């Protein structure tokens, strides 16, 4: 069992948790992820390692409540325990000094882009970051991102904060600006955002890395459920990724595969909420 040592509410639907998991913390690196299963009935869901503390033996996760498992995790409190927590999984981000790099974080993707931006900065890059969300309430870690970036651009879809635009607009301007000499781009966020970032950088041949969030079960290469179609065939995101060259990804196939369990996902939420109502109290995980 793995204890929740700290919980922070970053927005209505975005939560941060610090979990005691020394076996994962001892080797965790930026770009890697864990698989968590709340309790005996839970599914195995992948979450990025947003931060780690080797001495304290802790892993920080940040998640957006989109379905049953993330909602249930979001209801859990400090002191409660999670059944399983496996990792670190996937390949770490390859960090070098490339010159000027752009880090794009959309929505909950701001969490996993942060350690990457930090490492890139430490490696001597000039880091320009773009973070975006649907509205002001969903934005978090602006201060942290600013601290590791030479320049930070904030956008919201509805203009309630920062610039009113999608993250791809300022990105295009940066790439077109010859003075900036953008050497590389990292983008993490909803699949649809990553697709448009990829489309934006492809004409300029700026190498672009994305961290793919396919549906997973084991996270160790055993099921193939996470597979993604690249130009030269299928790959398993959990062991070959999660980071890939954005320009090689077949985005339409990826987006279609994310939809496959829609109906069941809705049924799971309804079943859970019904059960919570019957029991008169919010369902606690870990029990």
């Amino acid at each position: 069992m793995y204890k929740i040592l700290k919980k922070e509410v970053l927005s209505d639907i975005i939560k941060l948790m610090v979990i005691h998991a020394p076996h994962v913390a001892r080797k965790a690196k930026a770009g890697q992820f864990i698989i968590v299963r709340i309790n005996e009935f839970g599914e195995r869901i992948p979450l990025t390692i947003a931060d780690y503390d080797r001495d304290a033996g802790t892993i920080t996760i940040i998640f957006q409540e989109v379905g049953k498992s993330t909602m249930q995790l979001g209801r859990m409190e400090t002191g409660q325990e999670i059944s399983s927590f496996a990792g670190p999984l996937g390949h770490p981000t390859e960090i070098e000094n490339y010159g000027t790099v752009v880090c794009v974080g959309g929505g909950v993707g701001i969490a996993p882009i942060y350690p990457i931006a930090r490492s890139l900065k430490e490696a001597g890059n000039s880091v320009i970051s773009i973070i975006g969300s649907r509205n002001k309430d969903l934005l978090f870690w602006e201060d942290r991102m600013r601290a590791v970036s030479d320049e930070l651009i904030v956008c919201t879809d509805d203009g309630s904060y920062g610039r009113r635009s999608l993250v791809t607009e300022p990105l295009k301007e940066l790439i077109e600006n010859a003075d900036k000499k953008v050497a590389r781009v990292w983008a993490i966020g909803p699949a649809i955002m990553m697709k448009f970032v990829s489309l934006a950088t492809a004409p300029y041949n700026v190498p672009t890395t994305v961290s793919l969030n396919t549906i997973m079960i084991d996270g160790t290469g055993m099921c193939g459920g996470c597979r993604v179609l690249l130009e030269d065939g299928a790959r398993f995101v959990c062991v070959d990724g999660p980071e890939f060259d954005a320009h090689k990804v077949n985005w339409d196939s990826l987006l279609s595969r994310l939809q496959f369990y829609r109906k069941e996902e809705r049924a799971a939420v309804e079943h859970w909420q019904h059960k919570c109502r019957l029991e008169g109290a919010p369902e606690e995980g870990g029990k």
Partner: protein
Amino acid sequence: MAELNQKERMKIKRHDMPNQDPLVRRRNYDEVALGYSEATAKKEAERCLQCKDPKCVQGCPVGVLIPQFIKALREGDMVKAVEWMKVKNNLPAICGRVCPQETQCEGNCILGKKGEPVAIGRLERFVGDFELAHRTCPLAKAAPTGKNAAVVGSGPSGLTCAVDLGREGHKVTLFESLHGPGGVLVYGIPEFRLPKRVVYGEINYAVECLGIDIKIDHVIGRTFTLDELLNDYDAVFLGTGAGLPSFMRIPGINLNGVMSANEFLTRVNLMKGYLFPQYDTPVKVGRKVAVIGAGNVAMDAVRCSLRLQTLHSRKTNELPGEVHMVYRRSRDEVPAREEEFHHAGEEGVIFDFLTNPVEILGDEKGNVKGMRCIRMRLGEPDKSGRRSPVPIEGSEFEMEVDTVIMALGTSPNPLVFVEAEGLERTKHGTAVADPETGRTRKMRVWAGGDVVTGAATVISAMGAGKRAAADIDKFLKGEAPWQ
């Protein structure tokens, strides 16, 4: 019963084992085969001729002392029967249920030459179940040796190796990447063929009696590497199996509705998807399912599909759909256990032999809508001695399906080879290890089971774990140093 003579024994007919009715069992996940009663088991045991040179034993990959345990059983001495069994086989309740007896022990039984062989598997299951219920054979543990060993993977090879090492007094830590131990026995083989209580019974016993420490959520190659384990342990056994699924190299494999049998069975068994939404992990089968392959894995996939369809149709009042098994060879080459093939047929699977898919067809949303197949005929025997299938030109046709499950065989997961300098691998990805001792080319590392042989059987994996444990024990006691 008075002692019978050989002729009288040979007159007794082989006893059937009661099964759940096919129409009923399509609606549940309960065990299909119900096991012998004590009276039937004793009567079946009377059939054994107690051969001086027992051929059956030669057919068993681990050489179970078959005449001895059968004799004890028919004399009513169950404690003795369990003892005989355990000399060679740690997991009788499991092997009795899943061994391909018709090609192993029973395939060699002398009675099978003219009539029907002794039902060795069913008797073995009876003995195993007796032991699980009564715990007659406590795992005696030797005094602590002060040595420690790491076992990676908790399938039949790892479990057996861990138990045997624990008995000798070594301190054993078992590492497992999933959230529970058992390997294929838990994530692959369905409840209706091997109830999980049987597997957990064995595991709990090992943990309670021998104090084996099981570390779940530990992915070796990521959480720790093999080289790191070697710093902390005197010996390491790799029993990581062959869990990597293969997909056909044909167009359309990334469509929605195409999955590996591993994904499908993991959702159903390990994650209990058949109980969704009580359990969170969904599993989806459509109204027309095609499973490609005809091994044990394919057989489990068709039978799980049938059950999911029936359960679903009872909720929605629709008619249940169809489940096809698409196999490129013919009935005679089916590699699955005979009993499962028979059961699958009873449950209503449609077999499409000598048929091979060449393309999976999708609709505009990226969902599977059909499969283009080609008819095959059997040509000359290949290296394995089986007649190889040859496509019949111009015989292509379309089949309407909405779910395609690939059960085409698996290979070892390469993760464990990360930072394992010197651990040699064949071009098929299997670890190179001595078949007798399990020693790999890397000092203080042993391997056995599917990771060495490629996908094989429970009993061969268990045997490999046992042989490696014996050699590791000698090594740790200084009797067999590393050359």
